[in-house]
């Protein structure tokens, strides 16, 4: 039978333990980049996490010892009761961290979604799929063209359009595939890229020998798989392709809230599509055409490496780049990423 001796002391300790556990979680989130448990954004200001944690511990301890000083020095709850109170405090702290982090990330995503307002392409139909076409204003001679495949249910779709604007500025035609249910259906999804390249090849403004594909997340897996069979693509860029399913766990909280991560991991369609596209087995067939693999250094949602079998082709066809300070979801939003892709495509088309 549990006996807490003083109700006030037990409740006070529960509150104190919650604050200490919350502080420990914030330190862990700063040190291990766990955005899903970070109550504030520490990515640019890690010191803020340490200051908050110290404040929680010092403030909590001061409050507890001042209010409970007399009771602390009389026989109180035994070890088992204290362990139970700490366990409850830790659970409360974890709950608070997950909820506050989810709210913070939701607001952050909401402000990011506003950038989709600059989607101004010309709508085109591609069989079951559809897309948005971006053309440079000056059209003197046939130009290189790039198909852009977004992440399937992941990332900011608006970023693909920002990339399209960058490509157009470099006198390239860009076709952004709209994210729709057909992109999730296998094998129908395999027809998307051939349909897009066929459409582009027929346009007089496009040089059919200078076609490339860029895919993000599972879109990266799709372009790798499609390019392995579709030899018309002269260059392929895969941004944070999944290639191999990563093991679930806390790593998923590095960029997502708890619920988002749970939904992401339990998305059976996505997991099935990773296996069906099997980019891992098909990537090697792109050689000798150039392949750009681009990852964020803090990416915990993808394998973040090219399988060693791909490198056994005897020549240097893969460009593997890692961008410091970026994760999986924010990779496409960063100017460094956009400049890297545009520069790489410009040199190869």
């Amino acid at each position: 039978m549990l006996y807490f001796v003083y109700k006030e002391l037990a409740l006070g300790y529960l509150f104190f333990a919650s604050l200490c556990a919350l502080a420990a979680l914030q330190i862990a989130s700063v040190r291990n980049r766990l955005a899903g448990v970070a109550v504030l954004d520490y990515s640019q200001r890690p010191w803020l996490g340490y200051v908050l944690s110290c404040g929680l511990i010092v403030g909590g301890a001061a409050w507890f010892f001042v209010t409970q000083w007399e009771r602390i020095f009389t026989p109180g709850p035994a070890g088992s009761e204290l362990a139970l109170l700490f366990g409850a405090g830790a659970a409360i702290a974890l709950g608070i961290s997950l909820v506050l982090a989810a709210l913070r990330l939701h607001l952050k995503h909401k402000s990011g979604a506003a950038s989709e307002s600059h989607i101004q392409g010309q709508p085109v139909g591609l069989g079951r799929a559809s897309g948005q076409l971006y053309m440079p204003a000056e059209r003197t001679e046939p130009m290189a063209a790039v198909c852009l495949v977004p992440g399937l249910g992941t990332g900011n779709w608006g970023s693909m359009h920002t990339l399209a604007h960058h490509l157009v500025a470099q006198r390239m035609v860009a076709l952004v595939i709209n994210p729709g249910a057909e992109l999730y259906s296998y094998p129908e999804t395999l027809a998307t890229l051939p349909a897009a390249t066929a459409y582009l090849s027929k346009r007089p403004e496009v040089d059919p020998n200078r076609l490339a594909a860029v895919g993000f997340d599972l879109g990266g897996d799709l372009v790798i798989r499609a390019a392995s069979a579709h030899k018309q693509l002269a260059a392929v860029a895969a941004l944070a392709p999944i290639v191999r399913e990563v093991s679930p766990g806390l790593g998923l909280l590095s960029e997502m809230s708890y619920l988002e991560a749970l939904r992401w991991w339990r998305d059976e369609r996505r997991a099935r599509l990773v296996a069906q596209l099997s980019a891992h087995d098909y990537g090697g067939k792109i050689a000798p055409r150039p392949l750009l693999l681009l990852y964020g250094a803090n990416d915990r949602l993808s394998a973040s490496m090219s399988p060693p079998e791909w490198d056994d082709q005897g020549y240097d066809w893969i460009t593997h780049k890692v961008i410091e300070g970026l994760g999986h979801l924010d990779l496409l939003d960063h100017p460094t990423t956009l400049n890297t892709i545009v520069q790489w495509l410009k040199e190869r088309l």
Partner: protein
Amino acid sequence: MTIDWTLLSLLNGLAGRSAAFDLVVRLLVNDYAITTALVVVPFGLWFSGASTQQRERNQRAVLSAATSMFIANLFVKALNLLYYRPRPFAGHDLNLLFYHPSDSSFPSNPASVGFCIATAVWFFNRTAGWILYVLAGLLGLARLISGVHYPSDVLGGALIGMLSACLMVKKLGFLERLWTFIIRRMRSLLLA
């Protein structure tokens, strides 16, 4: 016994001289300050690790520490049934900075808990282990200055704690499977 008493009187002699020093010792000796730190560090450790492998190692440290604590408590309870040693303040005039505990003085339960957590964690994560050793050492020292334990009580408690952790980590290898199962389950909930 003479060395025990000499050391205790030397350390307890530090109490009652300065109000500030007594306050610090009372903050360290109670059941809520260092004991909370001794569990907060492993709690934070559960969520720490640069890679999945490192994090799993830390999580095994936490599970080992919790089991070691259980084993150490069993040892302490068994010893308490076999042997009762009165608290030092019962037979000597001391500067007592704590309340009068009524259970056996030997072995020191807080020392056994502190050192078993520190040792179990130390096997997996040296830095966190050393931090916990410092905390456990401070708790043991504060118990001596406060006059609630003999040095041999704290030493005995520390040895029981360390032996329990060694037993857990080195001899109870079959629990590894249980740790793997727990970590996998927690991982599927995205909490490990």
